[in-house]
């Protein structure tokens, strides 16, 4: 069995890098006494795996973490805690609360399930991500026009650094959705769904297309999409923590 957690990362903590997020999660899991498992070897590591890595400085409402559990300490929807949480039995809602108490401000578990381990990692399963981002130093009209032009083009080329050379690459096929969503206090706000396969397309690349010379403001991941039985779904949706 494993825990699957969906969490958000909002506000000042958007500047925390991916590796640091892993350490923050580890500490929170230990504080709650969740019966995690460890790798073998000279310096055992707590086992866990994330969805797609989030670039530093980006916010998110849709981060994922899978944590394999010690099967002896899980029964149906109840987890028996060890360590500092010794003697406590928790259902998913209670675990979600406990984790939220242990996590720093800015990180929130928004959904949590106890479920059987499945094959393949979440990281590989994610096909596309939903984004919301604003652009600093651009006019709303201009961005609106650029979006229309982009959607009407069959090819959108961007520069991409590959090893030591810069290559032009077409990203049109990776843009599933692109629209203006009003303005934030920093500038025009854009909503997009960008593909994660064969490579992850980032909002910062779109800024170069929509408003060359302008800067990405705050970008927020809103969804990570996977496919199950031909259906495009989110691994967990906020509030579904009790139903599995």
């Amino acid at each position, binding site marked *: 069995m494993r825990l699957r957690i969906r969490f958000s990362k909002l506000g000042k903590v958007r500047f925390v*890098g991916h590796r640091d997020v892993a350490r*923050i999660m580890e*500490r929170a899991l230990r504080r709650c*006494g969740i019966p995690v498992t460890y790798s073998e070897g000279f310096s055992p590591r707590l086992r866990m795996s994330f969805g797609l890595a989030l670039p530093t400085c980006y916010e998110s409402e849709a981060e994922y973490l899978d944590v394999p559990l010690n099967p002896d300490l899980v029964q149906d929807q109840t987890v028996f805690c060890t360590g*500092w949480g010794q003697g406590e039995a928790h259902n998913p809602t209670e675990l979600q609360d406990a984790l939220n108490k242990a996590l720093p401000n800015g990180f929130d578990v928004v959904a949590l399930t106890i479920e059987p381990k499945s094959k393949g990692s979440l990281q590989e399963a994610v096909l596309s991500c939903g984004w919301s981002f604003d652009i600093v130093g651009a006019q709303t009209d201009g961005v609106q026009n650029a979006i229309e032009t982009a959607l009407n083009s069959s090819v959108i080329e961007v520069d991409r650094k590959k090893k030591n050379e810069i290559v032009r690459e077409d990203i049109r096929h990776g843009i599933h959705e692109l629209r203006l969503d009003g303005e934030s206090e920093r500038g025009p706000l854009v909503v997009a769904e960008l593909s994660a396969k064969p490579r992850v397309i980032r909002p910062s690349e779109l800024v170069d297309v929509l408003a060359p010379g302008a800067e990405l403001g705050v970008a927020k991941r809103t969804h990570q999409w996977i496919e199950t039985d031909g259906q495009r779904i989110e691994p967990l949706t906020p509030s579904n923590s009790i139903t599995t």
Partner: protein
Amino acid sequence: MRARGGIIRLQMTSLWPRLEPVLPRVEKPARYIGCEDGANANIYKPDATSWLLTYPDTYEIGLPNQGLQILYELLNERPDAFAERSYAPWTDMEAQMRAADVPLFSVDTHRPANEFDIIAFNLSAELVYTNVLNCIDLAGVPVRASERRDADPLVGAGGHCAYNPEPLADFVDFFVMGDGEEVIADITEEVQEWRQSGKPKGSREAILHALALIPGVYVPAMYDVTYDNQHLLAVTPRHNDIPANISKRTIADLADWPYPRNQLVPLTEVVHDRLNVEIFRGCTRGCRFCQAGMITRPVRERPASQVREMISAGLERTGYDEVSLTSLSTADFSGIEDVVADTIDDPGTCGRVSVSLPSLRVDAFTVGVAAQVSKARRTGLTFAPEAGSWRMRQIINKLITEEDLYEAVRAAYSQGWHRVKLYFLTGLPSEMDDDTLAIADLAENCVQIGLEYTKKASVTVSLGGFVPKPHTPFQWFGQNQPEELRRKVDLLRNRLRKNKRVHLKWHSPEASTAEGITSRGDRRVGSVIEHVWREGGTFQEWSEHFNLELWKEAMDASGLDIDWYVHRHRDEGEVLPWDHIHAGLHKDFLWQDWQDALGGYGIEDCRWTPCYDCGACTEYGIEHVVASPAPPNGGSQGTGQDLATGHLVPVQLRPRAGVGGSQ
């Protein structure tokens, strides 16, 4: 900002909206956001004295500093004070801040530094002095204390380097000597009165005067310095009521101060990123090169039961899987094995918590301790024999025998370690090439022992250039020239070149010279520090930024001679720049100990033998707080002597009557 004639009510402003856009452009932006577990973002109290506790190096180095965290908590517990923290911004961040006109800020609430009543620096190393000036400047406060206006923040400093305050005397309004736990209350009360008066015109002089009357506080502006050509004549108070000497503050019992209770847990990786529990303060092993040991006497152990509580509560609160038991010589703690065992066996830790013991003395590191420590995860092990030959170790009074070292190393390898780190100093008084080369012999012998247990055995030798420090018996010693230090490093490199199992690392000899200038400098060195800073010489602790040429240039520009300040032996009669600061040790005790050193005499640890009257206890009416009546592991100073029976000792010990201040 200043209210006329009334109570000052600062409406503190957050710089966050201006900082946020620049953070994506800098390296490791997480070090500027605060948000640590244990930090309090709502600490602003409009009518309280505000302290900005500043560590003049990067966040990663500064955040774990225990002294700073203790004061942070203590101040925030007071109704009449609050504290926030700040750290030196890295060079890329500084450039962004200067370009966007953003001043130094607190990481807690991102308020500007100059809105605080006090900016207080922790001085743990001399090479950060240029960063201190840079932080003051970034705060928008004049770097020279004499140019500050009434309502500018007071600039304070404390920590080990404050024991020679003179090099920073022109830039710092007040220094604190010794333990900070109690004196911050006295300072807060004075500053609170000053705030409530509205900091009127001309009041800065009065508050400085008032601070200078607090025991343990040194206000350089209240003292005149006189010279006879090159030589310092005296540092004398300007007013009758100002004390001629400033004595350090010492807390009598660590048990009264179980801090930090809420150690800060950073969101980004820092050094010593683990739970740190201070198990005792002070050390009386008497190593003659060690300033920390000399100035923090006597030994005050925390009760083992309190140590256990702090470990257990700390691990549960933080979720860390590593705890470090900190002190100057951790294995000396009475009952260390039990404390380690209890931590590892605590059901809360699930056998997953590792214990690290910094500052291990080899004579107290036993197989028992090694076995306990290695249960969860083996952290790095560093031993510090400090010198290669027994002769040299007698001179520095680090009385551990070769056998002690081999026993400890054997304990480590036999319990599964593959590598141990050995720390040595070179450039010690009277050091000959044979002494230096003995370091290689020790390291190679350790490898041989390791090979009995593992094919992977290796030893890392870390070599530091010795810089004599104030308030130690070696304060009179002329430091080696950088060329000489480099020659000694090369001797060892050549000797060890063929041995692939011994890795040699060394500290830059040039940086040791700059450290020498700032360690034993007088007030004239202030202009050197300012010059280096103005020429862009910040982060001098970082090899990529260190530049000895800048220091040479600055010494020239100030008309000062490096040889005179750094490489010259001092004699008994010389007035030293820190003579007016009392760290508890009588100057004649130190001089006698220096003479003993040159004579090759060792002295025992006064925890378990009669007192030498060095002054650290006798002057203050306090004494050691040690739980165990017996020294650890068979003998004081690791010499194996049985003090009870007068067993033969392998080292010549000077008769006590000749030592001390009262002959």
